């Protein structure tokens, strides 16, 4: 029994040595593959490796770590010129990728989401993976360990305060860049319009289209009225949100309708007006399409906002088929 166990243990050791030797032999290939995969994900798009090679890139990085750990114990590794050259390359690439990652991420923050990709076709966030590959390769290599572990003077010289201060300065710089990008538009508007009126400021914040439309409604709809408004959802995120819209139109009451039907009894709910709203946004949801109301309304008069931001009064009923697909804004005074 003991002999069998000894035999099995010997076989396992032999197997491990063979794996170690194999890892050492093909390590440059594994390293190059991991680096190519990580750079590919950053330059093309995240997920490209999985799509075309059917391999999750995380597995590639895992194999790299395993190969690093196995090959560093191989006796040939210590004397290898290739491993020394590889470590120098890793250090240089670490510096390059680190610099690229930090500067491109901050460039993105200062502009807008996807800015760097639109200009340089690089996903800045994905640059952390090539950085990770070169750093982990260096750190786990025999050379990397020797440099850190055997040079205790280096460790003594690196005071913890310096590390903390460096990290702290990085966080502070990151925060300041974040705040700058946040306030840039506001400060710019404030400097251009130091004496702006309430209307101009609100128009800037809630969009001129919506704000002017609510001003139009307030001018043409009496305060004691009840207004039927579009259903809640894109393309009517503002005009269809009763709680939001009431802020601008109070004391007028607002009630949500449905897309193809009023959804409310005009008499029972004492509805006086119906909005005509094309839609504030290009996007839609719940299969809604632009233009509302999509049903006929018996009207005393219809007041449209024309292109010249003037109003145009029309007598007669609102017939949806006659105005279908026309980008119209206005209000209908219903016949009582």
């Amino acid at each position: 029994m003991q002999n069998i166990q000894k035999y099995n243990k010997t076989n396992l050791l032999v197997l491990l040595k063979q794996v170690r030797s194999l890892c050492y032999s093909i390590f440059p290939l594994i390293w190059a593959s991991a680096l190519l995969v990580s750079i590919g994900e950053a330059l093309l798009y995240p997920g490209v490796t999985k799509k075309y090679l059917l391999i999750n890139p995380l597995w590639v990085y895992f194999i790299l770590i395993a190969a690093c750990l196995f090959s560093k114990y191989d006796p040939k590794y210590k004397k290898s010129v290739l491993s020394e050259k590889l470590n120098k390359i890793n250090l240089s690439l670490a510096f390059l990728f680190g610099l690229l990652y930090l500067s491109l991420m901050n460039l993105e923050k200062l502009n807008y989401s996807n800015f760097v990709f639109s200009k340089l076709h690089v996903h800045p966030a994905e640059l952390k993976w090539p950085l990770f590959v070169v750093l982990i390769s260096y750190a786990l290599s025999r050379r990397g360990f020797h440099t850190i572990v055997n040079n205790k003077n280096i460790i003594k010289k690196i005071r913890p305060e310096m590390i903390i201060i460096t990290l702290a300065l990085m966080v502070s710089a990151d925060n300041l860049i974040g705040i700058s990008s946040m306030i840039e538009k506001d400060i710019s508007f404030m400097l251009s319009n130091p004496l702006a009126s309430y209307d101009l400021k609100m128009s800037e914040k809630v969009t001129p289209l919506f704000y002017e439309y609510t001003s139009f409604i307030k001018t043409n709809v009496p305060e004691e009225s009840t207004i039927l408004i579009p259903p809640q959802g894109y393309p009517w995120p503002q005009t269809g949100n009763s709680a939001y819209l009431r802020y601008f139109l109070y004391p007028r009451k607002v009630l949500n309708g449905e897309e193809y039907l009023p959804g409310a009894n005009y008499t029972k709910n004492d509805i006086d007006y119906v909005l005509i709203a094309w839609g504030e946004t290009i996007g839609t949801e719940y299969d809604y399409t632009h233009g509302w109301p999509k049903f006929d309304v018996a009207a005393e008069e219809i007041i449209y906002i024309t292109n010249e931001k003037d109003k145009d009064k029309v007598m007669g009923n609102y017939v949806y088929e006659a105005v279908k697909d026309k980008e119209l804004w206005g209000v209908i005074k219903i016949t009582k």
Partner: protein
Amino acid sequence: MFVLLTFILIIYFGLIFSSLIKEGLPFLEKLGLSYILGLGLTTLMMFFYSWIGVKITLGSIVILLLTLIVLVRYICHFLKRKIEIKIPNMLKEFKFLKRYEKIICVGICLIFFISLLINAYYPVYVWDALALYDFRAKIIAQTGYFVQVAKQFDYFAHYPLLTSLTHTIVYVAGGSNPKFTYFLFYLSFGLIFYGVLRRHTNISVAIFFTFVLVSTPTLFEQSVIAYTNLPYTVFYVTGTLYLYLAVINKSNNYLLLSSLLIGLSTWTRATEPFWLTGIVVVLLYSIYKKSIFPILTYLPGFLIIQQPWKVHLSRFFGDTMSTSGQISSASKILLSGASLNRVIEVVGYIYQNIILTWGPMFFFFLIAAFIDIKNRHKKGHLVLLLIIIVNLLLLFVGTYAFSITNVEWKKIPGSARRMSIFFLPLMIYYIGLVLGNTIFKREQTEFY
């Protein structure tokens, strides 16, 4: 003019009230506390008296404040509490700072100035403020009541009234833009944070981490919009920090202060369950001390503030909205057995939408926790770490329970992010505490 006078009265009331609870607080910290305590308690009193039929007007608010000031001064006199308002010579203190400390102070002041400028310029414009908080404020300012008119409006009575009543104070006093009150919350937060951190670290660390706090983009963003998240964060974090001080200093004054502040966080936002952390920690502390006194000190102050709104909600919407109703329904969900798939989904959701947005701060927090646990001689820090961990667990449990009751739970990541903003200041404080104690020596000179 009336707006300024009313807020001076509010701050003065807060000042003497905080002196009543805890004497000898540093000036800047006391100033920060004055505003948040004064405003929180004033708006709560306004809710009470309007509920019983007294109309909210400028006159009634001023009478309330004067009454509270006289009452608190009388109690202070009776208990022989000193009301000290020693304003230090800030310019003189500033001159004694090191050059880099001066630069950081200037940076902090610049950030506050920009926040004030943006708040003074732009009116209330963000979505929820227009749909609810500011709309309610205007209705209350116009009618003088809340409970009596709430049924006339949809989407009106669900959320507590702190921010709405703050706006109302500004409107009835003749003001047109209440946003400066959010700048004041932000400023108060910075002052209290500095004061509490300064107790355990040197000036450099305290000033620097206060800078990290006020320059956090998420917090800065909340300081220039009229949402409830910043006031909630300020109340909850300051309450938690005082809870931490209460435990490590064995101080009932801090415990009472903590209960009031965490209570006021529920007066700002009532749906978040994080107030449970305070009760859990105080219970554990009571068990540790083998004394019922801590929990008896904590609970009344907290419940007096939290319960009235819950009573209103349960009267308006039914028993499911009361504290017992909510605990009961949450318990049923949690005791019905956890689904492993849902657990993994919730963990993934929290990681993607909340933890990742914390950026490198979470990573530094983990490093600080590692250093802290390794240096086990600073047991006090582990109390704060425990509080943060309990909050993280509650975040998970709360999100899990929400995912069971709401089909579209994944569709509001922005709301989940805003709800979790308070983790950042707690982590920043913890990092400052651990690194300040581990690496830097605390100096004897003060800067208040």
